[in-house]
C-alpha cells in the first residue's frame, strides 16, 4: 500500500472553497492525486466542508468515476458503448481478463494494472475502443489488445 501523507491530502482539498457545493470537485481532486479515494482523505474532506462523512461516502459510491479501492499504475478502460459492444468489446475484455489474470473492476496484486469498463467514451467511430491511462486505441484487434496494454 502506498503511504498517504496528511499534508498532501489537505493541500489537495484546500484548493476548493470550503462549502458543500464543492463536494464532487473535492472528490475529483483527491482521486486525481491518489488514483483512488483513501478513507483518511474522505474524513478530511468531510471536516473541511462541514458535511457528514455519510454524505461524502454517498457521493463517492454513487458516481462511477470514484474508486474506494487502490488502483493500478495502468488503468485500462474497455469501452462498452453500443458501437463497441456490437463490434466485439466483450472479446477484448475477455482477452485482457485472461491475459492479466484479473476481472473488470479489479487491480492486479502488484498494483500494475486495473481493468475498468466504461459505458462509451464518445469515440464510437473507431469502435472497439480501449484506453490505456489517457491514450486512446481505436479499432482494437482482439489479438493485439494485450500487447498494446503491456507495451503502452
Amino acid at each position, binding site marked *: 500500500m502506498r503511504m498517504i501523507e496528511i499534508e498532501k491530502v489537505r493541500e489537495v482539498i484546500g484548493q476548493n472553497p470550503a462549502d458543500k457545493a464543492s463536494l464532487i470537485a473535492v472528490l475529483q481532486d483527491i482521486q486525481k492525486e491518489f488514483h483512488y479515494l483513501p478513507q483518511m482523505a474522505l474524513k478530511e474532506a468531510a471536516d473541511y466542508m462541514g458535511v457528514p462523512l455519510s454524505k461524502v461516502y454517498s457521493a463517492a459510491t454513487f458516481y462511477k468515476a470514484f474508486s474506494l479501492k487502490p488502483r493500478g499504475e495502468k488503468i485500462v478502460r474497455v469501452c462498452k458503448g453500443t458501437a463497441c459492444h456490437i463490434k*466485439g468489446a466483450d472479446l477484448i475484455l475477455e482477452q485482457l481478463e485472461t491475459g492479466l489474470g484479473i476481472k473488470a473492476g479489479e487491480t492486479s496484486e502488484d498494483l500494475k494494472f486495473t481493468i475498468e469498463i466504461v459505458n462509451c467514451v464518445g469515440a*464510437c467511430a473507431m469502435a472497439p475502443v480501449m484506453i490505456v491511462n489517457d491514450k486512446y486505441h481505436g479499432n482494437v*484487434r482482439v489479438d493485439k489488445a494485450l500487447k498494446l496494454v503491456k507495451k503502452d
Partner: protein
Amino acid sequence: MRIDSTEKLGQWQKECQKRIEAQKKRVLVCLGPGCLAGGSDQILEEFKNILAQKKIKDVTVESIKKTGCHGLCARGPLVVIEPEGIFYSKVKKANVAEIVEKTLEKGELVEKLLYTDPESKKKIVDYKEIPFYARQMKLSLRNVGQIDPDSISDYIARGGYAALAKVLKSMKPAKVIDEVSRSGLRGRGGGGFSTGRKWASCAKIESDIRYVICNGDEGDPGAFMDRCIMEGDPHSVLEGMIICAFAIDSPEGYIYVREEYPLAVVNLRNAIDAARQHGLLGKDIMGSGFDFDIKINRGGGAFVCGESSALMKSVAGEVGEPRAKYVRSVAKGLHDKPTVLNNVESFATIPVIIDKGADWFASIGTKKSTGTKAFSLAGKITNTGLIEVPMGITLREIIYDIGGGIPEGRKFKAVQTGGPSGGCLPEAKLDLPVDFDTLTEAGSMMGSGGMIIMDDRTCMVDVARYFLNFLVEESCGKCVPCREGLYQLHKLCVKICEGKADEDDLALMERLSKVIQTASLCGLGTSGPNPFLSTVMYFRDEYLAHIRDRKCPGGVCKELITYSINDKCTGCMACIRVCPVNAITGEKKKLHVLDQELCTKCGSCYAVCNFDAIDIV
C-alpha cells in the same frame, strides 16, 4: 485587447480575417477523437518540425492548424489543405515530408492519400465533392474542423460573437426570445421541447436570480456530437449561453461536462478565459452593462445526471438523483431558482439563428422540426463519423448516400437511434423522414443523435439485453419501478438469450414494460423499456427463434451457438494464438481442430480468421 463596444468587435473581426487571408496556404490537421487515436497529434508535430526547418514561400509554422473533428472518422487521420480544400485521408506521420515537399512547396498532389470514390473508383481532390460531405449542411458544426478551438481570433474571423453583438446592441430580451421561438428550434438533447418556449416561461417567473445551464453530459452510448462541438468549437457554446443569459436576465451559468471528456473541459476552460480576457464574458460584456459568467462542472460518471433535475443536483454538489417534476425546472431548477437548461448543440445553434434570422432557419428542415441536426454514425457502416443534415432527410439517405452503406457486403438489419431511451428501426422504416415526431411514432426517438447501424451479424435480443443491462447499472435506484422493474426485465431478457425462456416470459416482459413506462419517476425509467419494446415490435421472429427453436439467428448468444472450423482453414495459427482457453490445436499449414468441450464461445477465433474458416451454427 478588451472589446468594449460592439463596433470594436467589427474592427477586430476584419483584422482577424486579414491575418488568416495573409496565409496563402493553411494546413488543417484533424485532432478529433477518431484521428487522435490514429496518431494525428504526431502528424501535427511533424508538420511543425519540418516547416520550422524548411523555408517555404507563403507557408510558415503558423499555417499549420489543429482543428476539431472533420467528420469522416472512418478515413482518419485527416489533413485538409486550404484554400483548395485538398483532402488527404489515412495520413501517417511518414507521409508528412512528402505532403510538405509536393503539395506545399510545388503545388502538386500526393495521389495515394486522396479519397477514392468507392463506386466510380475516381480520386476526389476537394472534400466538398465527396458524397459524404456534399449532402450535408453544417450549422451547429459550422466551425468544427475549420478552426483551432484554442484560438479566439479564428472564431472571431468566422463571424463569432457577431450575433451576441447584434443582441446587445439592437435587441430587447423579449425580441431575442421571440426570434428563437419563431425559428422553431427544438431541444437538440432529444426531448424536442421548443427552446423559445422554455426561455419565455423561465423569463416570466419572478425571482432574484435565474441560471443558465449547458448540458454537456452526453451519456448516450454511440453519441459524440456534443463532445466534438465542445472540443472543436467551444466559443459557439459560450456565445449561445450568453445570448440566452441576456434573454432571460441571468448573471450565472454552468456547463456540466461528463467525466469521460477531459479534452472538452480543457478547451472550454481556455475558451472561457479568452472570452473573459477580451471582455466578451464576465462584467460589462462588450461595454453593454450586462454581466454574465460561466463555470464548468465536471460530472462523476453517472448516466442519470444527463436528466435535467439530476444534473442540477449534481451541479449543487449532491448525489444526482432526479426528482418528480410537478414543478418544471424553468420555475424551480438549480438551488430551486428558475433555470434554463439546454444541450450543447442547441446552444451552438443559437448564434446562427440570431445572425441569419428566425425565418431563414425555419425554412430549413420540416415544418415541425426545423433546421438541421447533427448525428454520429457508428457501428456496421462504411463511413463512420460525424454529420449534420437538414431535418426531414430519410434514414436511407443518411445510411447509404452519406454513410456509404454496410461494409463487407453484409446486409442491413437495423438502425438504433436515441441511445438507451430510443429504439431499433428495421429496413422497412428506412424511407422515414428523420424528424422528432416521425421517429417517436415509429417507436424510436431522435435522442441526442447517436445512430448505430447493425448488420445481419447482430442479434436484436442481445441488443435489448445490452441496453437493459446498461440501464440497470445506471438506474439511480430512487424509484421502485425503474430499480426493480428494469432489473427483472433484464433478467427475463437474459433468460431468452440463454434459450431458457418460454412465450409466457415474453408476455410478462411486455406487461412489465408498461408498468415501468407508467410509474417511473424520470426519463431513464419511463423510456427504459424502449429498446426491448422496439426490438420485439420489429424483430419478434428473432425472439421466437430464441424461445421456440433455441437458435440465435444473428449468431451472437453464446448458449445457442457453436463454433467449428471448416476446410477453408489454411493452418495459419491466428486462432490458436488468440484463443484464451487453448481450445484450438493444430500445426502450421494443417487443418486446425476446435475442442467443443473447452470452447467458451468467446468468438475470438471468428474475429481474427482471415479465411472464412470458422462456422457459427
